[in-house]
């Protein structure tokens, strides 16, 4: 019988404790961000999809060594290059990223020894069409140069 009333009192007290905790939160300012109207600043190291780095003239640093292609676990990078006559270096002619299979692991950026790849800071990438995610990074670099 003693347990009957102590249960009742301690139980009620625990409930009131909980209610006090939530009441204290009630007048406080929300901690959330009003997303479409404000957005967070992305961290410097944020791993978005990759993009090419250009030199001063806007030409890509890439020398078409295909290390990124080999490092990629999902095989989503395909690149092509030609060797112009009289030159020793290959020139990049196409760099296609199939973002639909990319898992954003960053192996490509790490494998690159020529400072040719970096992560972009873009994260608003929603689309209803698959073609939007087959990215031509060379074209992207040209657009960035303009």
């Amino acid at each position, binding site marked *: 019988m003693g347990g009957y009333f102590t249960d009742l009192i301690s139980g009620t007290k625990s409930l009131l404790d909980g209610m006090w905790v939530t009441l204290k939160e*009630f007048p406080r300012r929300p901690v959330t961000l009003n997303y479409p109207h404000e957005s967070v600043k992305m961290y410097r190291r944020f791993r978005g999809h990759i993009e090419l780095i250009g030199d001063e003239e806007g030409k890509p640093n890439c020398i078409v060594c295909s290390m990124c292609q080999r490092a990629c676990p999902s095989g989503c990078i395909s690149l092509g290059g030609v060797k112009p006559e009289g030159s020793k270096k290959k020139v990049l002619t196409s760099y296609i990223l199939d973002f639909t299979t990319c898992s954003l692991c960053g192996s490509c950026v790490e494998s690159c020894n020529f400072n040719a790849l970096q992560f972009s800071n873009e994260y608003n990438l929603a689309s209803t069409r698959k073609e939007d995610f087959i990215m031509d990074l060379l074209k992207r670099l040209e657009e960035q140069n303009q």
Partner: protein
Amino acid sequence: MSLTLFNVVLAVFIAICFVGANAAYLVWCERKGAGLFQRRPGPMENGPWGLLQPPIDGLKLMTKQLLIPGGVDKAIFMVAPVLAMFPALISFVTIPFSNSIVAHPIDVGVLMIFAFAALGSMSLLVAGWGSRNKYSMISSVRAVSQTVAYEIPLMITTITIVMISGSLNLGDIVQSQLGGFWHWNIWPLQKQVGFNLLMPISFLILFVCSVAETNRAPFDLGEAESELVAGFHTEYSSMGFGLFFMGEYANIVIGACLTVILFLGGWSCPIGDLGFFPFTHNVGWFLLKIYLIIFVFIWIRWTFPRTTIYGLLNLSWKYLIPISLFNLLLTAGLLKVF
């Protein structure tokens, strides 16, 4: 005679408007309250502070397709949401908002409210039975045993109050509490029952019962989202779901009204009638009190986890019923002595 009929129709119409507006904006209050309790802003995109959210939600519900699952008993399936809304509406007819604002004062108002509240749980049973869904079935069985368990202490507590004020008429019950907050039934200060110290506890019992009666968290066993998906309204879409939703909020308003009338002095001004406007006994005080009670409803919902069916029955049969019975006997004895 025709005038009475007209009066009733008018009263029902006003009740529908009141219930509809309340249900819609209580949903907004609930969502806003939930947001603020949870460190987030709640609805805020449509209109200032999201105030246009309820009509937009209503529009959405009305324009959606009403799906009827194959193999259900159509008549029963369709009648259940109406049955959820209808008793709540009728109960408003007898609730006195102030001395003059009452649709139809009935001498057995308390009885009528209980009768229709019991009918409300019928809708859960019918919905669960008619949905042809195992989750709904389990939920409706739960909901009914819950209602049965909670109506007993609710009625016993009400009888205590009826004995003190000597009337089943809700208006008369309030009349006996006019004249300042020390006259309210919640305080153990009533001379005629010799300062019964159990009155605040009685109030708590009534409050807990009205939470349970309206199937609100922490007693929302019927809906029990994480166990029974959505309980009895799993299969309902569009306005079928909308009516259940509105019925729930209408029941909350009734629960709050009943609590205020029985224990918190209805439309009486807390410091007595001073004779000038805000401090007279008027409907404003009544509304203020019921919304305060509703705030506590919301506050409780967004604080506690759900009980289980046996936890709920334990609480009812081990604590609420014995204590309320004891209080009934004590009050009867004290009434005899003083």
